[in-house]
C-alpha cells in the first residue's frame, strides 16, 4: 500500500516537471488520430539531423512482387555497408502515431449543478503501406562507377557515381531499372552536383529466408552539409500530387523548409461532435482545403514537440531504444551529461530530442526544387488538434439552463461554420450529417420543448 502511494506521487512529480515548459498543460482527452494511411500515394521518411550528421530512414510501403521492387535515390556522399541498416517498420508507425493530428473532447457540466463529469474515449486507425519504383539486374559500362556493392538484410545495394546522365540512364535501363522518360535531365543535374546514387533491390533468397510480407525500411547514415530530401526524380512523369511525411528529429528545435514556406496546419478548432466518427474524412478534406488555399500544394507542419512528452498523447513518446534505432546518435553520449529531469512515467532521464512532422503535398510544377531544410532554435510546441465539446443533455431545471441552452446553440452554430470553412463541406451537408449521426444536435429551450415538435416549415429551409 505504502509502495503504491509512493509510486503514484513520484509519477505526478515527473509529470508536472515535464509539463512545466508548456502553458497549455491540459489539452483535452485524446479521442482519435489521423494516420498517414488516409493519404494515398504517400511516403514516410524519418530524418535525424545534428550538425552535418544525418540518418535517414525511408519507409518501404511497397506491396507486390519483390522482384519488381527497386529504388534509386540520390545521396550526397558515397555510402559504405556500415552506414546502411535495415530498420523496423513499427518504428515509423509509432513515430507516425505519436505525431498524428488528434481529436480531443470535453464534456460540459450540468449548468444547474456544477459537477465534474469527464469521460474518456479512444479510437485509432490501422496502418497501411506503399512506395518505390523499378526493376533489377546488373552489368557495367558507360562512365558509371560502382563505388560500393553490398547486401544488408533483404536488400542488395549499389552505390553508383556517374560522369554523364545518358550513361547512367542507359546503365540503369540495361540493368533492368525502369527509369521514367525525362529523368535523364534530372539525373544529369544530380551528377553535376556531385551526388551519388543509392540503388537498392530485393535479394529474393534472403527475403525468402526471412519470410514476412513487407519490406523493411532502409536507414542510411551519412555526413554532409546538405540537409535536403531529393524529390525531383519522383516527380518526373508523375501525374497529380504526391504526399510526403517527414519526421525530423533534432537536438535543437523545429525543422523548416528553407526554399518553400512552411505553413502551420489549422489547429485548436472546435468542430461538431459527429466528427468523432468521421475524423479521417474530416482531416483529409481539411488538409486538402488548406493545401488548395496555397494552390493545391504546400509544406504543412502537423506536429512539433519535445519528445519527452505529449498532451494529449496520440501514442506514447518513443523510447530511448526506439530513438537509437532510428539513428538518434547523440543519445549514446547522454550517460555523461547528467540532466536529472525525469520523463513522463519517470522511467529515464529527459532527452534532447525534438520532433517536427511535416506533411508535404507536391507536384513537379509547384515544387521544382528538392526540399531543403534548416534546424531552427524554436522549441515551441505545436500540434494539429481538433476539439469536440459535448453539451450537457440531461435534465436541467434552473433559471441558468435557458441561458446555457442559448450559449450552446450559438456555439454549435459557430462549430458548423468552422467545419465548413476548414473542410469546404457545405453547411447544409454538415447539418444533414449532424441529423444522421443523432448526436450533438441543437438543444431545445424549455419554451420550444413545451411547444412540442417543430413547425413543418422549419424543415423546408433548414440551411438558413
Amino acid at each position: 500500500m505504502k509502495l503504491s502511494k509512493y509510486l503514484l506521487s513520484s509519477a505526478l512529480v515527473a509529470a508536472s516537471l515535464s509539463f512545466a515548459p508548456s502553458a497549455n498543460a491540459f489539452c483535452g482527452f485524446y479521442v482519435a488520430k489521423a494516420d498517414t494511411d488516409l493519404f494515398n500515394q504517400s511516403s514516410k521518411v524519418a530524418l535525424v539531423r545534428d550538425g552535418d550528421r544525418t540518418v535517414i530512414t525511408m519507409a518501404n510501403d511497397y506491396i507486390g512482387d519483390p522482384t519488381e521492387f527497386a529504388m534509386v535515390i540520390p545521396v550526397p556522399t558515397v555510402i559504405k555497408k556500415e552506414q546502411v541498416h535495415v530498420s523496423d517498420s513499427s518504428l515509423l508507425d509509432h513515430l507516425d502515431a505519436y505525431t498524428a493530428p488528434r481529436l480531443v473532447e470535453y464534456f460540459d457540466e450540468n449548468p444547474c449543478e456544477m459537477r465534474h463529469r469527464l469521460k474518456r474515449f479512444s479510437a485509432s486507425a490501422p496502418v497501411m503501406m506503399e512506395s518505390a519504383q523499378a526493376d533489377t539486374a546488373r552489368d557495367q559500362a558507360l562512365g558509371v562507377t560502382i563505388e560500393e556493392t553490398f547486401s544488408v538484410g533483404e536488400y542488395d545495394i549499389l552505390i553508383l557515381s556517374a560522369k554523364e546522365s545518358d550513361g547512367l540512364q542507359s546503365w540503369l535501363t540495361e540493368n533492368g531499372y525502369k527509369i521514367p522518360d525525362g529523368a535523364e535531365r534530372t539525373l544529369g543535374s544530380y551528377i553535376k552536383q556531385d551526388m551519388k546514387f543509392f540503388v537498392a533491390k530485393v535479394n529474393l533468397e534472403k527475403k525468402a529466408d526471412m519470410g514476412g510480407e513487407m519490406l523493411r525500411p532502409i536507414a542510411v547514415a551519412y555526413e554532409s552539409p546538405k540537409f535536403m530530401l531529393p524529390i525531383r526524380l519522383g516527380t518526373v512523369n508523375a501525374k497529380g500530387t504526391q504526399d510526403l511525411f517527414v519526421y525530423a528529429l533534432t537536438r535543437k528545435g523545429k525543422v523548416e523548409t528553407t526554399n518553400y514556406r512552411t505553413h502551420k496546419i489549422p489547429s485548436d478548432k472546435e468542430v461538431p461532435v459527429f466528427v468523432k466518427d468521421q475524423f479521417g474524412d474530416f482531416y483529409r478534406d481539411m488538409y486538402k482545403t488548406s493545401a488548395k488555399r496555397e494552390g493545391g500544394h504546400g509544406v504543412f507542419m502537423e506536429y512539433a514537440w519535445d519528445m519527452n512528452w505529449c498532451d494529449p498523447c496520440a501514442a506514447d513518446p518513443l523510447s530511448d531504444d526506439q530513438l537509437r534505432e532510428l539513428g538518434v546518435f547523440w543519445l549514446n553520449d547522454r550517460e555523461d551529461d547528467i540532466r536529472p529531469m525525469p520523463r513522463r512515467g519517470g522511467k529515464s532521464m529527459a532527452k534532447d530530442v525534438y520532433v517536427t512532422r511535416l506533411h508535404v503535398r507536391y507536384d513537379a510544377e509547384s515544387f521544382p526544387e528538392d526540399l531543403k531544410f534548416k534546424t531552427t532554435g524554436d522549441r515551441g510546441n505545436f500540434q494539429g488538434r481538433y476539439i469536440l465539446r459535448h453539451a450537457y443533455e440531461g435534465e436541467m431545471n434552473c433559471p441558468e439552463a435557458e441561458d446555457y441552452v442559448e450559449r450552446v446553440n450559438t456555439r454549435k452554430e459557430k462549430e458548423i461554420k468552422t467545419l465548413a470553412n476548414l473542410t469546404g463541406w457545405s453547411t447544409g451537408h454538415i447539418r444533414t450529417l449532424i441529423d444522421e449521426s443523432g448526436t450533438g444536435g441543437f438543444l431545445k429551450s424549455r419554451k420550444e420543448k413545451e411547444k412540442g415538435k417543430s413547425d413543418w416549415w422549419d424543415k423546408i429551409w433548414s440551411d438558413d
Partner: protein
Amino acid sequence: MITQSEKKSILSYLLKDPRHYQIGVLGSLILLGVFHFAFALPAWHVMACLGSALTTQFIADKITGRPFDPRSPLISALSLTILLRTGSVWLSIAAAVLAISSKYLIRFQGKHLFNPANFGLVVVALLFSGAWISPGQWGTAPIFAILLAGLGGVVTGKAKRWDVSLSFLGFYAALILGRALWLGDPLTIPAHQLQNGALLIFTFFMISDPKTTPNARIGRVVYAALVAAVGFTIQFGFYNSAGIILALILTAPTVPLFDRIFQDELYQWPTLFPKFQSSRKGDTYETVQIPAE
C-alpha cells in the same frame, strides 16, 4: 507658427528623404505580415527591436553630442524585425543593441563599416542557437509586394542607391540562371529561387544603405558583384540558406578599399532645416549639409 513656405519645404523634404519611404514600406510590410500573411512575428519581438534600437541610438547620440535622429535606427530595427527569428526577447534586444552600437564602435575613415541590421542579425544568429534567419517563410503575395515596393522606390527615385540594388539583383540572378543552365535544370528552378522574400528585402532595403556602400557609383556596382558572388558561393557551395546575408558582413570590410580606388563624395542624408544644423569637425555621420540634389 509655421509659414506657408516652411510648410512647403517640410512637405518636399518628407518626400525627398529616402528613409521615409523605406520606413513606410518596411512598416507596412510588418503590419501586413502580422495581420494578413501570418508571418508569426510576436509583438514583443517588434517592440524589443524598435525600442532597443531607438534607445541605443539615443544614448549614443547623447554621448557623442549629436542631435538624436530616430530614422536610421528605425530602418535598422524594422529590417531586423522582419529578418530575425527568435524565441527570446533578450536576443531581439541584443540584436538591436549590437546593430546600432556597431555604427558608433566599428568605424573606419569616418564611415561605419557594417550595415547595422546586417551586423546585429548575423552576430546574434551565429552566436546563439535561439536565434535564426528564416529565408523561406514568405508567401507569393508578400514577395510580390516587396518587389513592387522596391521597384517603385527605384522608379520614383526614392531609393538613392538603386544602382547597388539593381546591379546586385542582376548579378545574383545571372549566377543563379547560369548555374541552372550548367546543371541542365528547368528554368522553373532559378525562377523559384529568385522568388524569395528575404532576397528582395535584402536587395532593396539592406544592401542599398548609402552609408555602408562605396561612395562612387562604379565602386558600388563592382561591390554588388562581389556580394552576389560571395553570397552565391555560400548558398550553393556551403549549403547555407542565409548566403547573401552572410556575404554582406563578410565583404563590408572591403568597402574602404573601393572608396580608395573609386573616389567620390560621402553620402549625406537630406536635412530638415539645414540652417539650424551646425557642422562639427570630423562629424561625417548624418545630417550636416544640404544634399547635392
